[in-house]
């Protein structure tokens, strides 16, 4: 770059930093904007951002190199991110990938010479009910076929925009056709329950809440027995109570819409169809814990909803449901901002989500202190899942007892399930807590299921003998994911996919997870290559247990679940694959001397 160019660029970057008030805590936002404007964040730009924000360049580089959708090298004007989730693979991802490569004339991992395209794989983008799916130029394209992939590339080459293509293919159902969304994504919302999708009136929950004391609101939530829908299942009322009681001049409410667990896509549908209910829940929570600020952490993959969601927020402000004196209640000022993510499964972990929102690498924090005591900027912070907050709003509107009358035992209410894979009607279902897997399978038309994966890669793999188990906190917990596998599927392919997922998504902070996920991935590959022995199975179990026992956060603690739960429930599948030898290695002498043969022009002669 010439001196003049550098100066112009520096000026532009400075201007971008200015849009975020040159705040260090907005580093992710700044870097995202730079990425969008220039297709990458070069070493030069790293320095300029660092200067504008008054921080060290390694902090900027640390962030750029942490997130999937940020890149130090130029990506194409239309970067293609093809989903590699297990269900995407099952539905024909590899043919689609081939078609993209052929049409764009490059391989995955490359950027085309004309700068138009780059091809990359990415972890689940939350479209398992319409796979294979990809983000192209930030726009989701779903139910891809090889022909479609070719057509997309050809059309973009000849000057079309992704938006024009989406219009041609037709918008999806419900609000996907909203003029601020205009997406071809389908909701596939196939069962609306009374709680989340019941009749309601905007603001009703807030008006009811502000007529109560915050303690009364919390008591109502406790009465409902509502527990966190994000996976861990912590009692929501208790969490609100802890946060309220933590002393500080400020409190924060976070809505966790990172939804990165492969196979989960309930948040996507809620944010498309009932965003008001979600924001209502955040506001009620804000009132209960004494907070003035809510933050919705929206994963980059759902950024196509951003404009629409901003509009919903604006309308709520106009209706007096956000802003000063919410719902007329003096002293209760509350507003919500949307924090975009930049691609990292780990950022769904609440303390990593907070770090990310402070503009840092999405590494989890040590606990204690828990976020309810010291979270965002050191203040008490409530982090709840999208569905938890929506349910909480309904609890306040209709009463805790009403809510508790749904579901079973300690698992009250309903649960949104996102069901995908080998079934006739993949999509989102609001079903009562505590229903059996078998019932769910009937509802989605998957009577011939051979295996079901509940809870995504970090969850449990079960076979037919477990189909009468219940989806609830005391038995099979799930943040929503349920993947169905027909009788002809190779379970180990899915285990391999999940193992790669965890290796890709480990934040790298702690040793057992950082190293162990790679070891587990290598082990399953060894077994699938026909080099597995009984020792490998034993080692896989024992290593898996060590990784779970020593890792710092939930990611590492559940990273070996794909192997451990399939070794427990589908041992036969492994036994059929291994050999009875005492020792086998993947070492292949002929392959190991190939390079030497080429370099010397010799041929290898081995017995």
């Amino acid at each position, binding site marked *: 770059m010439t001196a003049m160019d550098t100066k112009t660029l520096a000026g532009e970057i400075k201007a971008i930093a200015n849009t975020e008030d040159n705040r260090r805590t907005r580093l992710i936002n700044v870097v995202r904007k730079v990425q969008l404007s220039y297709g990458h964040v070069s070493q030069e730009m790293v*320095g300029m951002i660092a200067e504008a924000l008054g921080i060290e360049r*390694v902090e900027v580089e640390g962030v750029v190199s942490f997130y999937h959708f940020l890149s130090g090298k130029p990506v194409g004007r239309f970067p293609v991110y093809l989903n590699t989730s297990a269900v995407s693979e099952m539905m024909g991802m590899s043919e689609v990938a081939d078609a993209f490569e052929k049409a764009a004339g490059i391989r995955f991992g490359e950027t085309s010479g004309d700068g138009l395209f780059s091809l990359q794989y990415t972890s689940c983008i939350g479209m398992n009910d319409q796979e294979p799916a990809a983000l192209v130029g930030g726009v989701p394209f779903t139910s891809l076929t090889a022909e479609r992939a070719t057509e997309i590339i050809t059309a973009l080459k000849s000057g079309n925009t992704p938006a024009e293509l989406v219009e041609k293919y037709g918008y999806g159902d419900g609000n996907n056709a909203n003029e601020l969304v205009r997406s071809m994504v389908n909701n596939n919302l196939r069962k609306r329950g009374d709680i989340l999708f019941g009749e309601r009136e905007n603001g009703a929950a807030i008006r009811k809440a502000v007529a109560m004391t915050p303690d009364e609101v919390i008591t109502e939530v406790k009465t409902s027995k509502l527990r966190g829908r994000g996976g861990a299942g912590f009692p929501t009322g208790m969490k609100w109570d802890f946060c309220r009681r933590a002393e500080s001049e400020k409190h924060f409410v976070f809505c966790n819409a990172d939804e990165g667990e492969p196979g989960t896509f309930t948040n996507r549908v809620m944010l498309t169809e009932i965003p008001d209910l979600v924001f209502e829940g955040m506001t009620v929570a804000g009132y209960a814990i004494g907070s003035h600020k809510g933050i919705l952490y929206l994963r980059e993959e759902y950024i196509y909803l951003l404009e629409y969601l901003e509009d919903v927020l604006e309308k709520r402000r106009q209706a007096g449901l956000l802003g000063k004196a919410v719902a007329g209640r003096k002293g209760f000022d509350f507003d919500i901002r949307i924090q975009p993510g930049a691609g990292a499964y780990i950022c769904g972990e609440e303390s990593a989500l907070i770090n990310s929102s402070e503009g840092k690498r999405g590494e989890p924090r040590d606990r204690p202190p828990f976020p309810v005591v010291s979270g965002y900027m050191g203040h008490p912070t409530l982090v709840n899942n999208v569905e938890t907050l929506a349910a909480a709003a309904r609890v306040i509107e209709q009463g805790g007892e009403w809510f508790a009358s749904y579901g079973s035992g300690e698992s009250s209410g309903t649960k949104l399930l996102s069901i995908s894979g080998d079934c006739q009607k993949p999509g989102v279902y609001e079903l009562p807590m505590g229903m059996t897997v078998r019932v769910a399978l009937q509802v989605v038309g998957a009577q011939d299921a051979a295996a079901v994966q509940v809870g995504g890669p970090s969850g449990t793999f079960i076979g037919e003998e477990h189909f009468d188990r219940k989806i609830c906190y005391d038995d099979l917990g799930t943040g929503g994911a349920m993947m169905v596998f027909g009788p002809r599927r190779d379970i180990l392919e899915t285990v391999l996919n999940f193992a790669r997922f965890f290796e890709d*998504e*480990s934040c790298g902070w702690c040793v057992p997870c*950082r*190293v162990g996920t790679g070891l587990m991935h290598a082990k399953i590959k060894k077994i699938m290559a026909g080099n597995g022995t009984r020792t490998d199975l034993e080692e896989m179990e024992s290593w898996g247990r060590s990784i779970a*026992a*020593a890792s*710092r956060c939930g990611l590492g603690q559940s990273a070996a679940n794909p192997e451990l739960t399939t070794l427990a429930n589908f041992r036969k599948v492994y036994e059929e694959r291994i050999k009875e030898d005492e020792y086998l290695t993947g070492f292949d002498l002929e392959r190991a001397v190939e390079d030497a043969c080429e370099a010397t022009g010799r041929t290898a002669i081995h017995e």
Partner: protein
Amino acid sequence: MMTSEKITFYIDEIECTATQGQSILEAADENGVYIPRLCHQPDLLPGGSCRVCTVSANGRNQAACTTPVANDMIIENGSEEILDLRRAVIEMLFIEGNHYCPMCERSGNCELQAIAYRLKILAPRFPFMFPSRKLDATHPGIFIDGNRCIQCGRCVRAAQQIDKKPILGFIGRGGAVRIKASSTEGLKGVDISPDDACVKACPVGAIIVKDTAYRKPIGERMFDKQPIGSEIEARRTS
């Protein structure tokens, strides 16, 4: 806050006392019980990254350096299960990097190696990864050998917390996390000197001050005769 309140807890059935608010590791140190650790350094905030200090506290595995000790807490530090977990973690560090001890400047004075000796590790159970790592030898007096870095973050924290100049940081994610100096020119481009806390913080042979190595003959180095942690254990009056 009742910060000075004394509490009682137990490590492998040894009765110990601590002050409310201390971490398990700090409290154990004061009571003369050694819990192996790599990423912890007393004058830095804990990092909780190496997991070598994992103990079972009231039946749950916890990192001793980040978990506050509690009254009546029952801690397992020496059970075969915990020892094996620690061995696994140490072995992971050996196979993850390129640790050619025979030619390392820090050999004999290295904390990673010393803990492996103490745990009597003969060879790692995991296959070696032989990663490709970089050497930053741009600086006249100091170099960083990425091959030996265990990503413990001590140098990063020392630079921030003691030297008050965040010149070192991590880049990348997962298995690709690497330590890096905050300059396009490498170490040469940052304000660093051999006396900085961040240089001294490195527990292994990753940050080395040039012209200082191999001064002590084999047999007289820090961990040749005395296992690591002996000085802590010496505090215990039996």
